[in-house]
């Protein structure tokens, strides 16, 4: 895709000079283009792509004030259309696409799509609380991981939890005693190399990272922002190591947080100080670019890793309340999904091209 990529850059640079001449720190709004979402009212909460012509997005459609239907949308290279309805009340938050007949979603429970229908994974009842999954990942061999929290009565009591799928059943993993908190994200590099991260509900709240070496899960020291609540919302194995992104709050607005495993230790990485610019996703594109995207409400933020500067730099962000982001394998393209900043629960799907 070299030609396409050059085209996108030219567009972006043109917009910098024409539309935002004073904003030298961003690349304008050029690269992000909305594609029509086939949902009038609702929410698009997660997206994943197999290639340029095949992607899925999940969320829910508000049929009326009394009825919300969880849905899966499919991209055919030209348009998005609803492919299926998920099991009732599943409220998907994250999606992992292994093939068009092997898709996992997590939200309220864990669901699996076999190409024809959805089934609900059975996790049984844990005496420690209600299982709320937040993130999932798999390796080509078929092993999968779901992380989240067990909620007894309230998030104030929640504890982190990991379940592993060996190809036939889910099994709760033994974690070290990490206290209260939550695991928000997991990334599996190999059957004996899996990272999970989130936050520990200490005072102040700190980042939490645990690692699976094939035998056991151990907590690994991770940086937090001194004097601030810190959290990790996403993990990604990309250029330069394993990346963790999230946010921190010292009492006023949030700011972005990023850290990297360089093979020996986790170290905080420099991010620009963007008010309410918490990061929700970190992905890398086929051309080796590393992106971190997030924000909350009216604030959207997109960062790119500048290896030569050894820091994250702000770039053009999509005009959407970002719920999920995905890279399109083998291309420089990204999808971002969520809701519009104007109007009430108007779903938006946008991409870079």
């Amino acid at each position, binding site marked *: 895709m070299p030609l396409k990529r050059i085209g996108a850059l030219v567009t972006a640079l043109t917009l910098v000079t024409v539309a935002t001449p004073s904003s030298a720190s961003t690349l304008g709004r050029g690269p992000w283009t909305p594609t029509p979402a086939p949902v009038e009212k609702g929410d698009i909460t997660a997206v994943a792509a197999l290639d340029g012509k095949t992607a899925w997005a999940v969320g829910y459609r508000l049929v009326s004030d009394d009825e919300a239907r969880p849905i899966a949308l499919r991209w055919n290279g030209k348009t998005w259309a609803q492919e299926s309805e998920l099991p009732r009340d599943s409220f998907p938050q994250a999606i992992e696409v292994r093939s068009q007949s092997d898709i996992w979603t997590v939200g309220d429970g864990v669901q699996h799509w076999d190409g024809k229908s959805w089934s609900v994974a059975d996790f049984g009842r844990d005496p420690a609380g209600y299982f709320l999954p937040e993130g999932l990942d798999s390796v080509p061999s078929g092993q999968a991981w779901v992380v989240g929290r067990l*909620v*007894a009565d309230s998030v104030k009591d929640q504890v982190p939890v990991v379940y592993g799928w060996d190809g036939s059943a889910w099994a709760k993993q033994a974690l070290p005693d990490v206290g209260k908190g939550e695991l928000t994200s997991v990334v599996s590099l190999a059957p004996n190399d899996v990272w999970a991260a989130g936050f520990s509900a200490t005072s102040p709240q700190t980042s939490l990272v645990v690692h699976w070496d094939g035998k056991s899960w151990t907590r690994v020291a991770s940086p937090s922002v001194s004097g601030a609540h810190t959290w990790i919302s996403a993990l990604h194995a990309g250029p330069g190591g394993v990346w963790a992104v999230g946010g921190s709050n010292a009492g006023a607005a949030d700011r972005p947080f990023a850290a990297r495993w360089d093979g020996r230790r986790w170290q905080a990485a420099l991010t620009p100080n963007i008010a309410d610019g918490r990061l929700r996703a970190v992905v890398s594109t086929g051309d080796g670019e590393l992106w971190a995207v997030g924000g909350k409400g009216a604030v959207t933020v997109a960062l790119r890793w500048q290896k030569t500067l050894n820091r994250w730099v702000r770039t053009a962000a999509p005009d959407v309340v970002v719920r999920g982001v995905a890279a399109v394998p083998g291309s420089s393209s990204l999808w971002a999904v969520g809701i519009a900043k104007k109007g009430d629960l108007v779903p938006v799907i946008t991409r870079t091209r």
Partner: protein
Amino acid sequence: MPPQEPTSRRAFIKTGALGVTSVAIAAAAGSAEPALAAPRPADAPLPITPSCSGHETPSSVEGPLFKPNSPERTNLVTPAITGVLLALRGVIYDRECKPLPGVLIDFWQCDQNGDYDEHGFSLRGHQLTDSAGAYRLDTIVPRDYWGRWGRRGAHIHVQVQAPNGPVLVTQLYFPDDTQAYGRNFAAHNAGDQFFNRACVVTLGPKQGNRYAGRFDFVIKTTA
């Protein structure tokens, strides 16, 4: 479904008795909305202080989304928060209608899209009442929500505690004619299992994108 504040028509009908109790409490507390004061020049009009009834503010469920260690602050409006602004003011009294200074008051709510911040502390904050027993909260009218945590009409969660006193856990609601996000507050109030007329914030007229609101608490100071 996870632990939550379930609201469905079925749940509402089943708990009809609770609704009657709420109305009874509202009547007993005499908290019909008072007349409004004259508009203040540089601000949205502030409703007049309701007189203290001496009746304890009713409690409600805490719900599953309280996080301890919220930042100490009176203004929850950060750049992310662009809903209908709400300047909420009030006084915390004891049952003898004496204003209580130094009372801890902790607020948490969802944003203009119905999102609670579970990873961080957006729209979460605590403060202490001043020497006149007053608190001030600059925030937004929350949207009603529907998701993994259930389905609720618009509300603000609050915990109130006098020094060494018991904790009052309750929720504040909005009048049926509140205008925000194009939502039908009357319908969502009617369908909300926990809605309590005695805990409805008094609002002045909407000015632009802003309401001024008033809610006074009456709390126990000893267990």
